[in-house]
């Protein structure tokens, strides 16, 4: 934070810092007490998952609960990955989530850009995108199932049921409303002067979008992409109905262990959940980087 002040006007570095201190934040001890309580609340279930993943079968449902297993085991991981569709689920989920994210970001940001800068479609188009999110899945899941299993074969010549492409297309549609809205808000708040300057300098609109607007909107794009990824990574109901076997995803594999006929495979489920958190760690780092970048940009401007 301080080097921002140095760079912009070294002679008044100290003064800027004082001014910035005036910004309302939750300060001092209260701040860390609050963060501490929240971290505890967050960690308890997470710890329980982590510790369950290395517990032997007998310890999992012991009374009193076992907090520190004496004989940790890795069999749950091997089991979950090899016997319960773990690898397949991870592979499918990763491909589906990545492609969905790319599609949603590419289609969503361009649409949002046009809506923000040209008012294309006005309020109605914006609300139409949002309304895609309003329908309870129950109403559309049967028709989507019919569309994928029967009509896609008749109309398109190939079946979409139990395929990655089928889920990718559907998830893109589900992820788009949020991407569009998020980026719409972002572009609206971004000053248009830079793009206009580029236009004056002889750039085409498309160049202005690709070379000026996109890089500037990077923090917004990163968070929009993150949520598209998260949505595809965690969606359960449609994946369960449309992708049981070949296109099984992580949530479907997990739900099979802890909610349906198999019942109580909590050890294996915890193990697979732990593995499925790897992208979370990567994304946490990415989000962190871009949020901090947003912060320093603000500081340099100040």
């Amino acid at each position, binding site marked *: 934070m301080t080097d921002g002040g140095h760079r912009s006007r070294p002679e008044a570095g100290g003064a800027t810092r004082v001014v910035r201190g005036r910004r309302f934040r939750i300060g001092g001890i209260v701040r860390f007490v*609050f963060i501490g309580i929240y971290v505890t609340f967050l960690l*308890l279930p997470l710890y329980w998952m982590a510790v369950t993943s290395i517990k032997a079968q007998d310890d999992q449902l012991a009374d009193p609960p076992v907090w520190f297993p004496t004989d940790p085991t890795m069999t749950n991981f091997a089991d979950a990955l090899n016997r319960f569709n773990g690898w397949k689920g991870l592979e499918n989920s990763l491909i589906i989530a990545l492609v969905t994210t790319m599609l949603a970001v590419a*289609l969503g940001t361009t649409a949002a850009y046009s809506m923000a800068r040209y008012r294309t479609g006005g309020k109605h188009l914006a609300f139409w995108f949002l*309304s895609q999110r309003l329908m309870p899945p*129950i109403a559309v899941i049967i028709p989507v199932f019919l569309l994928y299993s029967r009509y896609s074969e008749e109309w398109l010549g190939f079946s979409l049921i139990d395929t990655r492409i089928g889920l990718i297309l559907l998830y893109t549609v589900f992820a788009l409303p949020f991407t569009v809205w998020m980026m719409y*808000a972002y572009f609206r708040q971004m000053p248009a002067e830079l793009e206009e300057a580029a236009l004056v300098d002889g750039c085409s609109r498309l160049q202005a979008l690709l070379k000026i607007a996109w890089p500037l909107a990077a*923090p917004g794009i990163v968070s929009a992409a993150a949520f598209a990824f998260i949505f595809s990574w965690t969606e359960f109901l449609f994946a369960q109905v449309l992708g049981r076997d070949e296109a099984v995803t992580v949530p479907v594999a997990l739900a099979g262990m*802890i909610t349906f006929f198999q019942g109580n495979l909590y050890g294996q489920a915890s193990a697979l959940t732990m593995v499925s958190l790897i992208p979370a760690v990567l994304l946490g780092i990415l989000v962190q980087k871009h949020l901090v970048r947003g912060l320093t940009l603000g500081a340099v401007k100040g």
Partner: protein
Amino acid sequence: MDRHIRWLLVTPAILIVFALTIFPLGFSLWVAFVRYDFTLGPEHPWVGLDNFVENWKDPVWRASLWRTAWFSVSMVAIELVLGMLLALAMLRPFRGRRALMTLFVIPLFISPVVVGGFFDLFVRRPYGVANQLASWVWPGTVTIDFSIDSPWLYIVLIIADVWQWTPFMFIIILAGLAAIPDTLYEAAELDGAKPRQSFLFVTLPLVLPVVLIAVTFRLIDAAKLFDIIFSLTRGGPGTDTYTTSYYLYQQGFEFFHLGQGTAGAWMFMIMLTFVSYWLVRRLLKPLEEAS
């Protein structure tokens, strides 16, 4: 040239949404007006508004609507307050912030159906942890059956949802806060604003659009709450934790009254449309003014 470009940019997004939703929506609209019931045979005679009326005759449907309303409002309210406080607390860098940020996003990566399953494990009696923890802080031995005893089952459901979705609010609000240029605070400072005032008159108005987007999307998703119920309480005991989505799922996939379930879904969607349209009009106003 610009005239074409603007439509060229939105068309792909519109096309893909349109292509995938037009058939399911049309089909489900038809299903809502016919008898579509796997238990009653393969014919689908037209029944008019019967499917819609059937829902209103069922007290469980009416109760589920109220429950859904207060569930989603209280969940999102708690998530908003926690997310906002957290974002304000995390705004200024400190040692360990990087690691915490990663920790904070983790719940978002766990499928809600799995979160429900793990909270079930967490509160189960007698080998769940919740009672043990409660016994440490509360005198005596606590033996609450969190999945049956009211109001605990509601509290557990709300906590599970808050656990999962507070990070969503947090990230969006933090991004919004981070985007506010410091010049504005300096200007407010020069005008003699106190920190509290600059929060009220600088911070809040500027993050409001993002906050409203987060609230709108969370509210819509919370109103469709299904996964956590499905894996934590299964609607029970009895029908005490039926949300509307869970009720419709039951009608359609457990009892196979697909016509009635679909009709209910359409009514629910219309109610949700009114709520979100009201929210969105509020939401668009600051965005319109931003130009």
